[in-house]
């Protein structure tokens, strides 16, 4: 690091601009307000907030609706009974809806972002926030007809991990 001692000394000569005088006063006010709200918070216990991922839920519902629509179309395509007098082999009576079986579910994480330390509501300790962007794919197959159904949608997941800072 000796190679850099000269430039380090030059950098240390630069003085950071000082905060405006009223910033300290603002902090003092904010700390006083915080004290008052802390008293209130001690009396009223806040319920823990349930974190619901609306995007994923919406996409999940859309996928389920798409599945039902396709399944219905498949039901409609089952051959209708005919009035033939003679028939060599009877048409098998199967339920197309029930014969769709899940064949695969994949989840590909294509982007991960570390959003640093955050204070989550209701927690005293800081938490590391990781944001995962994924593409989820669900597949079903009807073994009788060979029809297959594939639904793919993007999703996002936020994971908070407690960090012991001290």
């Amino acid at each position: 690091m000796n190679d850099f001692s000269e430039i380090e000394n030059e950098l240390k000569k630069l003085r950071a601009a000082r905060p405006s005088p009223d910033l300290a006063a603002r902090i003092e006010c904010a700390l006083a307000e915080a004290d008052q709200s802390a008293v209130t918070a001690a009396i009223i216990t806040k319920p823990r907030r349930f974190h619901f991922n609306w995007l994923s839920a919406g996409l999940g519902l859309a996928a389920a609706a798409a599945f039902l629509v396709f399944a219905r179309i498949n039901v409609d395509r089952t051959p209708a009974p005919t009035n033939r007098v003679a028939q060599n082999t009877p048409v098998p009576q199967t339920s197309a809806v029930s014969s769709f079986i899940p064949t695969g579910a994949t989840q590909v994480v294509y982007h991960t972002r570390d959003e640093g330390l955050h204070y989550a509501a209701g927690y005293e300790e800081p938490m590391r926030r990781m944001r995962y962007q994924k593409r989820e794919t669900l597949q079903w197959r009807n073994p009788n007809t060979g029809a297959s159904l594939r639904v793919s949608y993007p999703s996002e997941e936020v994971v908070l991990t407690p960090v012991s800072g001290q």
Partner: protein
Amino acid sequence: MDNVATHEDWKVCFSEFGPGLLLFARQWVRSPTDAEDIVQEAFVKFWRRNHRVNNRALLYATVRSIALDVIRRDSRRARREAEVFSDSEQSIGPQFELGDESQLALAAAIDRLPHEQREVLVMKIWNELTFAEIATALGISNNTAASRYRYALNALKKSFQTQ
């Protein structure tokens, strides 16, 4: 300053860390007023939770986290900041009390550094954090923090020598 934060000593702590925190916050927002708002929110949050005063990594991580939240909260600002970060000529950069022309040139050279190097440089030089503290605050390894610092110094040294 090793004690847990109490109401009596916050002014001592703020007078020591204030300029460095402000300089650190200025990396994300253009206006000094926005930077002061970020420092205020971070400092109050840190102080209210009675963290150890010498846990500087957490203090700087709080500033960083709030700065990123502020940018994210305002989408227009986020777009503007993204443009600023992509254009190194117009980057925000740390703000200093400048003296002569060589200091002006040095400040401009700091301004041209990539954001991740400048971030480490600001924490190391003007806030005197250790590499371990920088690594904790930024969520990177000690080696990465040290190498970003070295790259920054190397770039500055080159630009300093060419003058």
